[in-house]
């Protein structure tokens, strides 16, 4: 036998048929990540069904309780059910993260394309402005702006979007520059294609995939960032159950009950872990195809 093929199980054979996702699921860390992301999405979609109580319903007599049969994860300082608050918190996480990453992605691509494509003085100006935004640590920038704009979900989304734009713009710009060196761009030019066509039809589609993966990998980062701002009281306002707010309220009562911090903290860690594992595996699986050098 020249090429001995390793035997494959029924499950593997089934997964082989699903493009990309099947490959992610065959890697242990990827499967773990997918499972966590899947559970997160279930929580987001079915929050009203899954949550045993109204997230804002106060029940002062049963405040600061530990886990019990009535309250699986215990209650907070106002007697609200922690499990329900955490389940609803997933919605806030998603609502804050997706729009802000989208803003950053779109803004970054536009600025990056302009800088990389027009070049010259436009490029210099864009780079300096981006460097300036990047000169502030994201938390500090958000603190300075939100302090003035006042805390709210919308402001928070805008600020996160702004803080994340330089990253995407830089990647886009670098990709445009490197794509411009590519022979296929050169070949289009020699065919007589105008620059606009080259950028929109040949460069953009080729740099979009890595940018989207970057965006997917930024989702968990932005989720923690948003929770952090809420923890500082600069994001969504109580009684909205952001995980950051649960942490912040738990911090105030840290000597009375460990449970709000424990549960919200663990949820946050596990969620971001899931997104990160899934995203990294996805990138590893897709990467050779993105570069376009994988031979048949």
């Amino acid at each position, binding site marked *: 036998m020249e090429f001995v093929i390793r035997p494959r199980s029924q499950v593997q054979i089934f997964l082989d048929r699903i493009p990309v996702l099947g490959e992610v699921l065959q890697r242990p*860390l990827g499967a773990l990540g997918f499972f966590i992301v899947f559970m997160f999405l279930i929580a987001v979609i079915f929050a009203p069904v899954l949550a045993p109580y109204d997230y804002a319903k106060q029940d002062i007599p049963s405040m600061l309780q530990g886990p019990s049969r009535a309250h699986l994860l215990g209650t907070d300082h106002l007697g609200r059910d922690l499990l329900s608050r955490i389940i609803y918190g997933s919605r806030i996480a998603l609502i804050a993260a997706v729009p802000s990453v989208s803003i950053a992605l779109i803004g970054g691509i536009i600025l990056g394309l302009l800088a990389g494509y027009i070049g010259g003085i436009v490029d210099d100006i864009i780079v300096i402005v981006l460097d300036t935004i990047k000169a502030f640590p994201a938390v500090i920038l958000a603190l300075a702006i939100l302090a003035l704009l006042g805390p709210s979900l919308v402001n928070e989304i805008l600020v996160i979007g702004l803080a994340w734009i330089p990253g995407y713009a830089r990647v886009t710009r670098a990709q445009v520059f490197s794509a411009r060196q590519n022979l296929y761009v050169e070949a289009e030019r020699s065919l007589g294609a105008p620059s606009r066509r080259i950028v929109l039809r040949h460069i953009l589609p080729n740099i979009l995939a890595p940018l989207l993966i970057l965006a997917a990998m930024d989702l968990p980062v932005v989720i923690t960032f948003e929770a952090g701002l809420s923890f500082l009281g600069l994001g969504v306002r109580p009684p909205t159950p952001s995980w950051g707010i649960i942490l912040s309220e738990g911090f105030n009562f*840290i000597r009375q009950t460990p449970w709000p911090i424990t549960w919200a903290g663990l949820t946050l860690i596990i969620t971001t872990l899931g997104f990160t594992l899934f995203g990294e595996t996805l990138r590893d699986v897709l990467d050779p195809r993105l570069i376009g050098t994988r031979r048949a």
Partner: protein
Amino acid sequence: MRRYLLKRLVTTILVLLLSMVFLALLVHIVPGDAARTLLGPRATPELIAKVRSEMDLDKPPMVQVGLFIWKILHGSFGTDVFTGRPISMLIGSALPHTIILAFSSLGLAVLLGIPLGVFSATHPDSWLDRILALFSISFITIPSYVGGLFLLLIFAVQLRVMPAIGVGDPSNIPDYIKHLILPAVALAITWVGYLARLVRASMLEVLNENYIRAALAAGIPLRKVVYKYALKNALIPTVAVLGVGLGNLMGGAVFVEIIFSRAGMGTLIYNAIQSRNYPIVRAGVLVVACLFIAANLLADLAYTYLDPRIQLDKMQG
């Protein structure tokens, strides 16, 4: 090389100037009057007018920008309206605590993260490597405030083996260090994981290089090839990241300082925000940004210094 340094320096100065302009004008993004917001509804019009003129808010925006930069260049951030103390003094007393915290965290991250990364890279795809991978990714995903809260909860509240509040007594070194441990660990966790991953990836890449094969083919012992030939190459990109790391650690310090009630830049800015004390916010943010810019510049320079190839490329280019 000199040309590269000059270019880098000029852009840095431009970025600094632009940052100052941005901060000087930031007051104007909200409608209403910053002085009134600062002093509250019960302040007298005379007091408001006085503060307005102290903050240069009564002048045209361009003049405000100019004056702001002018005063900073002369080492003055103005005076705090409430305490009457110079803002630079407030910053001067807060800054060292934050810098010590950030550097301790960075030190921890380097001491733990780099060996972990090297170990993983030299045992690729072993079980230990996979477990370490899971741990490093988990570490990366632990935000400093969650790490801080957990450490506070476990070691200060439940076990009561560590102090929960304050920076301790700076003249009493053991006490100061005892107060530093939990915050520094909380802040370092993410970066331990991040550096481990980064060093692993960069080591694996280097170990695939032709010169590693050539060194092995020359009969140089594996140990020496890994720890001398490969490691030096793999650490060069890491150095560049450390600059960014220091900046992020200063940002993350805000959370940790609040959680452990440490009197640092984070707490200073945060409290100023709570009381709408805009001049302090502005000065504090500027100082942090300057440190961040300086850290990045230093990392870049170190990078250029460490990699002999860059000097030539820049000279030619």
